[in-house]
């Protein structure tokens, strides 16, 4: 098969689709492939699914051309200095959501997929970094934008314990409110409030070291123990701690089980591949509490399944290795 999904027939283009069109138009032989919309079937058991009007591709990260000659043509004009300048149409960008196609917009959108009701509002909505990769196709750009957001203090990145690579992204405001609510009336409330007030705004890292806590921020050992008891810090190494979300254990349990369940749905299929639309149309197994869409974003972004664009839509296939 030659190239990725055909350009959408809508005339009003957002910035994301502009890029896609630029790339597609430079590829020869695209010709008259019929317009094909990726229709997103909402699973009836998936109450949180919302069809975003942002783009008609729920998984734009899958749009990657597999054709070597396209890549050649793309880099060669750049190398030889021939640049095609495309006039950008008027781009409406909501300053709160960020530009379409940016990490900020992806994070806002994915936050809406998180099932708040499942945790009785005790957990802030958590989004994974791999899910952002499924919406923003260029990973380096996504990483850099997330880093900027982290430096500005809008989001916190948290190490989720099950995989050293999996980072959870939480809005700082949500994190603060939930943590304060969770530690209300408990003996460690004082230490937690001091931590939220002094350390969180100052240090945007994932982890904290012993001397940083004691000298720079003036925490005593007993206060650090309080923080670990409260669930705000988890032990990483002797003298260093990861930032954590209190009560995230349940989320991690559901997440790991759900991820395995969705992967096994693909594994049990014939030839170990499933059309995305078919997967999302199936009944979610009972184990999947966070929603099929949530898990599919994560699987695609973490490259646990290969995304292949076919004429019937995106196909998810388990990698051979």
């Amino acid at each position, binding site marked *: 098969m030659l190239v990725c999904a055909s350009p959408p027939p809508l005339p009003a283009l957002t910035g994301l689709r502009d890029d896609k069109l630029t790339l597609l138009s430079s590829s020869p032989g695209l010709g008259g492939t019929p317009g094909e919309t990726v229709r997103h079937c909402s699973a009836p058991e998936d109450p949180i699914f919302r069809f975003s009007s942002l783009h008609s591709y729920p998984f734009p990260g899958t749009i990657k051309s597999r054709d*070597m000659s396209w*890549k*050649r043509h793309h*880099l*060669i004009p750049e*190398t*030889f*200095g021939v640049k095609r300048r495309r006039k950008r149409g008027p781009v409406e960008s909501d300053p709160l959501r960020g530009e379409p196609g940016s990490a900020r917009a992806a994070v806002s959108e994915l936050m809406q997929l998180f099932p708040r009701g499942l945790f009785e509002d005790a957990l802030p909505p958590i989004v994974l970094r791999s899910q952002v*990769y499924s919406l923003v196709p*260029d*990973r*380096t750009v*996504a*990483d*850099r934008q997330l*880093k900027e957001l982290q430096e500005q203090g809008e989001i916190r990145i948290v190490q989720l314990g099950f995989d*050293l*690579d999996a980072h959870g992204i939480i809005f700082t405001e949500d994190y603060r409110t939930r943590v304060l609510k969770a530690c209300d009336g408990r003996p460690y409330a004082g230490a937690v409030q001091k931590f939220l007030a002094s350390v969180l705004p100052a*240090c945007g*890292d*994932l*982890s904290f*070291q*012993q*001397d*940083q806590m004691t000298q720079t921020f003036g925490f005593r050992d007993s206060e650090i123990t309080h923080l670990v008891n409260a669930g705000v810090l988890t032990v*990483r*190494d*002797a*003298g*260093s701690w990861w930032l954590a979300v209190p009560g995230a254990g349940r989320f991690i349990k559901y997440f790991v089980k759900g991820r395995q369940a969705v992967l096994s749905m693909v594994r049990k299929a014939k030839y170990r591949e499933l059309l995305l639309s078919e997967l999302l149309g199936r009944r979610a197994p009972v184990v999947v509490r966070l929603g099929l869409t949530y898990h599919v974003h994560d699987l695609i972004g*973490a*490259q646990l399944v290969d995304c292949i664009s076919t004429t019937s839509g995106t196909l998810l296939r388990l990698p051979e*290795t």
Partner: protein
Amino acid sequence: MLGFLSARQTGLEDPLRLRRAESTRRVLGLELNKDRDVERIHGGGINTLDIEPVEGRYMLSGGSDGVIVLYDLENSSRQSYYTCKAVCSIGRDHPDVHRYSVETVQWYPHDTGMFTSSSFDKTLKVWDTNTLQTADVFNFEETVYSHHMSPVSTKHCLVAVGTRGPKVQLCDLKSGSCSHILQGHRQEILAVSWSPRYDYILATASADSRVKLWDVRRASGYLITLDQHNGKKSQAVESANTAHNGKVNGLCFTSDGLHLLTVGTDNRMRLWNSSNGENTLVNYGKVCNNSKKGLKFTVSCGCSSEFVFVPYGSTIAVYTVYSGEQITMLKGHYKTVDCCVFQSNFQELYSGSRDCNILAWVPSLYEPVPDDDETTTKSQLNPAFEDAWSSSDEEG
């Protein structure tokens, strides 16, 4: 391309631009070519390849059977079909051959009169190329995973050796003994590499997930431990900093020495700024890495956007270094690819794998224009393949 040539001719543009543009175009067109072959000598998997930096003509290969072979890459025949022949080899019948598998070979950086090889038999041997005798042998207590000699240094002849022990040893070729030990790692050292920019800067990668940068003149220890999260550097204790979430298998400096690439068994490749140890956060996606020992990958040299060639299972994945996008996967080997080297003069890639083959990836050229000369085309056709039938009705 013609525009570039005329611009260069009239002096409107720097000649280097044309060279870089053409090199990039050739690297983007790398593929297997039926006309280019490397003679198959090894009976075991090929662990390491090295092309001499002076002329780019001779290539050394070391295999898991302990055999070291020297190939001549230059095509001096007038035909397009060419097999790179082995000039000489240190085979199993050689008295000084390594007893176990050869893990790393490296040419002496300044001329082809000497090369070094290190092996699982706990030795580092220095060979004289012309007589194929060992000039010197360094013995260690543990198996040697990797060694490297500085490609730019004129002030010292130190060879950095990474073994199964946590200490990096520096052997001096002039004096014939180990002059230095660098302490700091906690587990085996899987890869070592000198910086191509500064004489005394060394990078080491270990199975304890850490990559350390050293200045070997400094007595007090390593300069930086690379931290993948780019945490605050003011920590007095850097013990928690890890470069990868698994063993760090391979190290490669870019050709200008300003950046360092590392691969780890957490299936990630990271690009670091080598002057301050900062993770540039370029994301290459999943780079499958199951190797229990070192993985030898390489970076292109002389292109406008540099490419990195990483062995990925039985294929070689090609990425642009600074933007992280995957260009292609070069498929051709039957088993796991262990090593690859780039010949920057002709933009060719040679890769060695466990299926005992070395494959040459050559930029695909334009199709040759068919000759108008009838006689030459006729003579090239083997009489066995000539058609015996005729379309005329009279002859049967």
